[in-house]
């Protein structure tokens, strides 16, 4: 039997069982049962994706499931990448969730063992498996909406906790549905131009569609899918919604759901529309570079740990979009090998990002679970109480900072390689934009190191700054197991990235960049292990560290002794004297003052008796999202004004409302009669 079909069938069965278990099982075993079944779903999805990457193709048509259209499924190597990534993240997050949801109900987050969350969890996981497998417009839209609604409900599941959760829910609901409408219009337009709604049919009919229609469809699809992928300026929901969801759900959203925006773009732009014009992909390249720099800049000045991670997602998705854009540009200019390489770099970065982002979000969830706060300024000193979590988070941070030994290093290296070789492409715009993209990637890489040193250093090292952080404890074993799975993936990508070379070659070919180019690129990817030799570099460095340590032990005169810290003779140091996350990021914030535009407020209250004696000083500082401020506020204001103006249409008379309907029916019939 086709292994892909088997994997999908097992995933569906596991999902259905999980939903049934969530509804019927008693509270004692509910969380564990749902967690295990969803983990099975994830593993099956990963297996199906892996089988697709190994060359198996699967198509199916279930005509009765959806009215009017039927369900079309097709899994090729490109879907396989996103299927396997989604499945792997579901697996790790579900295992983690077994511990997280069972122990929730204290420390600032409300009970996650309620039926609602447990039902939504497998539904969300299943939708992540369904979207890459969809092969017709209606199937894709239904799966997309299922994903949006289930994730929305998960985001607001802890709505009693604070007003921020509700506000985040509203933002997310509005933006994801606006994205859905945009995708709907774009895809339906495409389907009507191609006179068929199955992807295979559209791909066959695409060359005959006029460039105006294709361009219009691409812009709409870019807006819709890009918004899901957190592309600036349509990213405003990401840093609001991801922190407020329960941590396993944040991991799923950040590491699996946003990838599907990239999937949609690649599928529609490169595969269905066949590549299109160069300006499409230059636009993607530009927006990707902008997202990368803006995202990490906001991350480096963020105090909330999960907000930092959410902005880092924006950055990484920006890098992936740079790769996709470069692939499109190279393909259009007739350089298939470079195009294949760039797309492969983007896909590899998708995989590595999923690995380290999952690990980081799960780690942040453990911190939240142990201390009840996400604010880096209030944490610190967690290493002594939670050593394993600190070690795992450090591995994830290494990956996010794209340093050697981290999961993100091979993929960023490959991305840079494909861009550096891209100067051979003729055209002034390319020559100008490629260095800009390389500069943006470089700046984002540097800022990422700063941001994650901040997150790790001020959050986990040093001394605890609040009692909450002092009383932290190691999370339960299920949560550690989930993090361990993600860490395993990170280590794998860091040490032996060449293993996925041939798989990526197939995926790139499935995206429409096939032929000799893809084969050559696949060859180069397989040789990634020897070209970059990360195993050698990391192994050598570790060996040297061990050697030096032994040497130092031999040379030493006696055991290590404790010693006090240098306090300038002024007395014992308190945790208040440490550098907090805000102070760590202050030089960066000053350098990028014009871009970030922080708002600060200083309030000095003096005694009534004398204006020179200060009683109290209150200082507050916030770094808002400037894009949101400049772009969204005017748009929302305009919409509000339009809404207020159109209140006159609704004056309360039932007859008037019915009259509107009647009049439109009559008008339509008249038009119909006249047009015959």
């Amino acid at each position, binding site marked *: 039997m086709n292994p892909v079909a088997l994997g999908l069938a097992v995933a569906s069965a596991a999902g259905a069982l999980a939903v049934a278990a969530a509804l019927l099982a008693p509270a004692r075993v509910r969380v564990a049962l749902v967690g295990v079944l969803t983990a099975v779903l994830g593993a099956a999805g990963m297996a199906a994706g892996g089988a697709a990457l190994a060359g198996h193709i699967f198509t199916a048509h279930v005509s009765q499931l959806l009215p009017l259209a039927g369900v079309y499924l097709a899994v090729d190597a490109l879907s396989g990448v996103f299927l396997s990534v989604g499945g792997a993240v579901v697996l790790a997050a579900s295992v983690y969730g077994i511990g997280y949801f069972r122990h929730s109900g204290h420390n600032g987050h409300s009970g996650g063992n309620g039926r609602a969350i447990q039902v939504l969890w497998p539904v969300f996981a299943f939708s992540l498996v369904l979207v890459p497998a969809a092969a017709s417009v209606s199937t894709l839209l239904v799966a997309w909406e299922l994903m949006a609604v289930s994730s929305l409900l998960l985001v607001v599941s802890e709505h009693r906790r604070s007003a921020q959760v509700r506000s985040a829910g509203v933002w997310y609901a509005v933006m994801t549905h606006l994205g859905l409408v945009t995708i709907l219009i774009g895809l339906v337009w495409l389907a009507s131009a191609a006179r068929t709604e199955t992807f295979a049919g559209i791909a066959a009919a695409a060359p005959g569609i006029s460039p105006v229609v294709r361009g219009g469809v691409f812009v709409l699809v870019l807006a819709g899918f890009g918004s899901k992928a957190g592309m600036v300026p349509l990213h405003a929901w990401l840093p609001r919604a991801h922190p407020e969801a329960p941590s396993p759900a944040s991991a799923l959203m950040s590491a699996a759901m946003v990838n599907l925006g990239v999937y949609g773009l690649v599928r529609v732009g490169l595969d269905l529309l066949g590549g299109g014009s160069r300006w499409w992909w230059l636009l993607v390249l530009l927006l990707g570079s902008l997202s990368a720099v803006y995202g990490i800049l906001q991350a480096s000045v963020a105090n909330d740990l999960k907000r930092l991670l959410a902005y880092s997602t924006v950055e990484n998705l920006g890098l992936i979009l740079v790769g996709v854009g470069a692939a499109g540009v190279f393909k259009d200019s007739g350089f298939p090998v470079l195009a294949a390489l760039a797309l492969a770099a983007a896909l590899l970065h998708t995989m590595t990002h999923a690995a380290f982002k999952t690990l980081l979000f799960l780690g942040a969830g453990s911190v939240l679970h142990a201390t009840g706060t996400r604010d880096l300024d209030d944490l610190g000193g967690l290493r002594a109480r939670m050593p394993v979590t600190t070690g795992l988070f450090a591995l994830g941070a290494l990956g996010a900072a794209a340093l050697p030994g981290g999961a993100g290093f091979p993929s960023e290296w490959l991305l840079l390689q494909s861009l550096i070789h891209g100067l051979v492409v003729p055209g002034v715009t390319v020559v100008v934009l490629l260095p800009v993209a390389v500069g943006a990637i470089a700046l984002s890489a540097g800022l990422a190191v700063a941001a994650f040193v901040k997150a790790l250093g001020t959050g986990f090292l040093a001394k605890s700054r609040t009692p909450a952080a002092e009383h932290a404890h190691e999370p339960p074993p299920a949560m550690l197991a989930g993090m361990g799975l993600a860490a395993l993936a990170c280590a794998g990508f860091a040490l032996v990235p060449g293993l996925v070379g041939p798989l990526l070659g197939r995926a790139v070919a499935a995206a429409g960049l096939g032929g000799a180019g893809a084969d050559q690129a696949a060859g180069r990817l397989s040789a990634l292990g020897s070209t970059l030799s990360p195993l050698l570099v990391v192994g050598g460095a570790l060996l040297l560290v061990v050697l030096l340590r032994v040497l130092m032990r031999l040379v030493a005169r006696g055991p290590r002794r404790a010693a006090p810290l240098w306090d300038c003779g002024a007395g014992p140091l308190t945790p208040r004297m440490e550098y907090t996350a805000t102070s760590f990021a202050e030089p960066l914030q000053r350098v990028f003052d014009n871009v970030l535009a922080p708002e600060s407020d200083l309030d000095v209250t003096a005694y009534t008796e004398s204006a020179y004696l200060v009683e109290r000083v209150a200082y507050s500082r916030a770094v808002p999202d400037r894009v949101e401020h400049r772009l969204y506020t005017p748009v929302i204001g305009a919409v509000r004004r339009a809404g207020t103006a159109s209140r006159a249409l609704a004056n309360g008379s039932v007859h008037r409302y019915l009259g509107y309907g*009647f009049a439109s029916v009559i008008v339509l019939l008249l038009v119909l009669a006249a047009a015959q």
Partner: protein
Amino acid sequence: MTTMSTPANGASELLDLAAGVFLLAAVAILWLRDVAAQTRLLAVQGSALAAMAVVLGAEQAHPELYAVAAGVGLLRAVVLPALLRRAVNARAADRETRPLLNVGASLLTAAALVLLAYAVAQPLVRLEATAAARALSVGLSVVLIGLLVLVTRRNALAQVVGFLLLDNGITAIAFLAAAGVPLLVELGVSFDLLLVVLVLRVLTTRMRAVFGSADLDDLRELRD
């Protein structure tokens, strides 16, 4: 559209008769002002609809149309008019005394709507010159007349009548054009109708309790 085979002459005459009764019932509802009488006319219309379904089932040899005809007849000729009659108060407050459009004007408008329906349905008649195709324009006319009743009557119960008229017209079109709708859809629509009638009954009772009459324009006060 599924095939509309040419029925035997007798069957086509029966169909024409049923369609005629259907349309006449709709016009009469527009003419009369007493809601109680309107419910009786609704029952007549429901029976005509069921008859159309039976005739179509006979000559198209679709046995399930019989079952649908029975269900439709039961619902629209018996159950819904009975429910509506119970809501009608014997007091004069339920006579439509001042409709938005007076009777003469509404009859003229109805005439214009019927003409429009015939004009729009011409291509279908040209496609297949059967009695069923001709009856399509009747269905469309009843839909438009139902909308007219909905828009121009103040009394809440009269609006329910208009709504039921609308739905009868849609069902007629479905039978004539496509030999009925899938059973599932028909069940769903019927359930909806039941719910609408029940809800509006409750609303009317509440309105009477608060305002003393069931005039929908009183609801405008709640706007601000």
